[in-house]
């Protein structure tokens, strides 16, 4: 139900269509997104997924680049702590990205724009929920202007 509801909210405020880049680890979150697909759980099309082998493959540069090139929100999704396919990868993600979160906060990027979450291959529901949730929050915040490269027009 919440899925449909948030879809409606977003349509009401026409004009701003946020762009959200989601980095998903191949083993859990990407599979979770696949499951959301096979279960036909709706979430808005504003979310675009990039597949990485493990969430620890995500470099802070990738996140910054996304913001720079006009993304309004970035999500990093990995296996639940303790469940990493590569044993410890998501622990690195957790530490690295909490540092990046601090940096982003310092330079004035709203907290809700950058989300790190753990979504397992069986959590298609959670995948759709997290995507909807981030999108709803980013939508409230409006476009990301802070880090955007002005030469880069979307």
């Amino acid at each position: 139900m919440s899925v449909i509801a948030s879809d409606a909210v977003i349509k009401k405020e026409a004009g701003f269509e946020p762009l959200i880049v989601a980095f998903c680890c191949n083993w859990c979150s990407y599979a979770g997104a696949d499951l959301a697909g096979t279960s036909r759980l709706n979430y808005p099309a504003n979310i675009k997924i990039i597949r990485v082998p493990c969430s620890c493959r995500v470099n802070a540069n990738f996140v910054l680049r996304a913001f720079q090139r006009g993304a309004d929100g970035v999500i990093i999704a990995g296996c639940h702590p303790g469940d990493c396919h590569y044993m410890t990868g998501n622990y690195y993600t957790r530490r690295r990205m909490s540092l990046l979160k601090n940096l982003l906060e310092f330079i004035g990027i709203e907290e809700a724009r950058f989300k790190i979450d753990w979504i397992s291959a069986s959590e298609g529901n959670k995948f759709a929920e997290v995507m909807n949730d981030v999108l709803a929050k980013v939508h409230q915040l409006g476009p990301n202007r802070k880090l955007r490269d002005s030469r880069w027009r979307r």
Partner: protein
Amino acid sequence: MQRVGVFICWCGTNISSTVNIEQVVAALENIPGVVYIKDYQYMCSEIGQNLVKDAIKEQNINRVVVASCSPRMHEATFRKAAAAAGLNPYLVEIANIREHCSWVHKDKEAATQKAISLTRAAVAKAILNEQLIPGEVGVEKRALVIGGGIAGIQTALDIAEAGYQVDLVEKTPSIGGKMAQLDKTFPTLDCSACILTPKMVDLALNSKINLYSYSEVTEVNGFVGNFEVTINQKARSIEMEKCTGCGICLAKCPAKKALSEFEEGLAKRAAIYTPFPQAVPNVPVIDRETCIKFVTGKCGLCAKLCPTGAIDYEQKDQIVNQKYGVIIVATGYDLINLDRFGEYQYLDHPDIITGLEFERLVNAAGPTGGKLVRPSDQKQPKKVVFIQCVGSRDKSERGKAYCSKICCMYTAKHAMLLRDKYPDCEAYVFYIDVRTAGKGFEEFQRRAVENYGVNYIKGMVGKIFPGDNQLQVNGVDALSGELLQLEADLVVLAAATQAKPEADEVARMLSISIDRDRFFTEAHPKLRPVETHCAGIYLAGACQGPKDIPETVAQASAAATKAIGVLSKNKLVNNPCVAKVEQAVCSGCLACIKICPYEAITEQVIEEKTRGKVRLRRVAEVNETLCQGCGGCTVACRPGAIDLKGFSNQQILAEVDAICR
């Protein structure tokens, strides 16, 4: 110059009903590098694959992008097709426009735009794809089976039959598992022990199979073909080689107070015991918590009586280290704890029992010699009430949301056995739905109703009120709307099945995933039902979800086949998407070494000529056979010297740019 061919799949109407294919084609035409675009109804079909192959040959394309379903579904298919046409398979990229697009979006315009964006990202990545050549590793030709129930036994026998060595690790003193406890099996009513024990003996006698009973796997490292496993053989306090299984010790042991695990607590056992007479191995074990010798230091009767001197009170746990090519997990299931179902009085009244306890009570080898009597007064019951779905299909905190699958059938079996043996005893079954999907199952259950006169009542029991001599069962017949009150002598609860409590630990040890009910997750719910996401680790039996015996055995054989597939190879192809070090850029800080969970990165000293002088410099080096390609090191590398093949920094940035355009 990169020449990209883009292949867009309609997936019947799965994609094309939401994504406007024409629009996608039109949008892609303008992308530099794209020289060929083709759309087709089923790209994964032979015709579709031929479209890819032909284009590689005729259009001279050297990068392939397929916009279709998830790469987890058909990446391998299209890589194979490309390879068949002479293109390095790692030059293929997939854009997931089904699971991540057409299936989750309703708005056609938005979905079409997203499909374009995803395909564009795939093109951007594909342009930067490089030819990759996988390395090879050897295969340890030995399988490890964890769990010695019917699933583990069947898997081990099948693998041994194919000629490979198998080690089977069983936690309890004997193999046999839950099936050994059962009386008869549905839907044929053949005796469980009669069909299981021969298999147990086969296993014991098979020279290819090595059994570690009363043992547990404590550590697993490595990867497919080369798992390194540590097994802890718990101290049995008996020397296995010396014991002849004569049983004198069991008979004479003075400590006979412990409840028998095998008899579900319905009988007592000695401190030195074999779980049941047909146990394999037929060697007892001393329960050190109840043994008088271990508790007080005085006794030692068994050691005095043992004709071969097999008793060893000083025995210690032994650690075994062994290498395996594959691992099969067959750890089974448990029944839920009924503590929180107070309305059924299970903990408070002896005549309210679980289905598994009923199996023991009607088993000829059970504590009553197969005579069904009430545990409270040893009298034969005249009215038995069976309650199904005790904790199954229950999404409250005390139950399990899923259907336990076996209860409908075993309850029908119980009621039928009861009516067969004691025609004067009435049987009532409370159910929510009767589920009999399985060969011969529906006929079986109907036989219980039509031929054996079992009274099926659609409805549940509110509460059981124990009376002086009988149990007052308050229920309802939901169909007629009649409130029922039954004076039962015995109540049998079909308690829900659940994953083993140690499932989390096993999953962590093996790096395989578990679902929200803590059952192990298969790689694909339909197409890869016995594989896990971890290559070389397979699942058999109820550890993956509730299953009956036929299903368990089928899955066990399937898992064995998958395992044999690996064991039969001399070399395994590695994933070529591994890390590589640009040594010219590497500063030799070696931060990457600490990150790597596989110890795949080592220090290397290289010779370098600068201004005519030869200097030695420390750099990192990646062992490609050990590297699993997580990419964690690439982020840790300060100078940016390490990159991940197949997921390079440039490639991911190109994807980001393409999406954010």
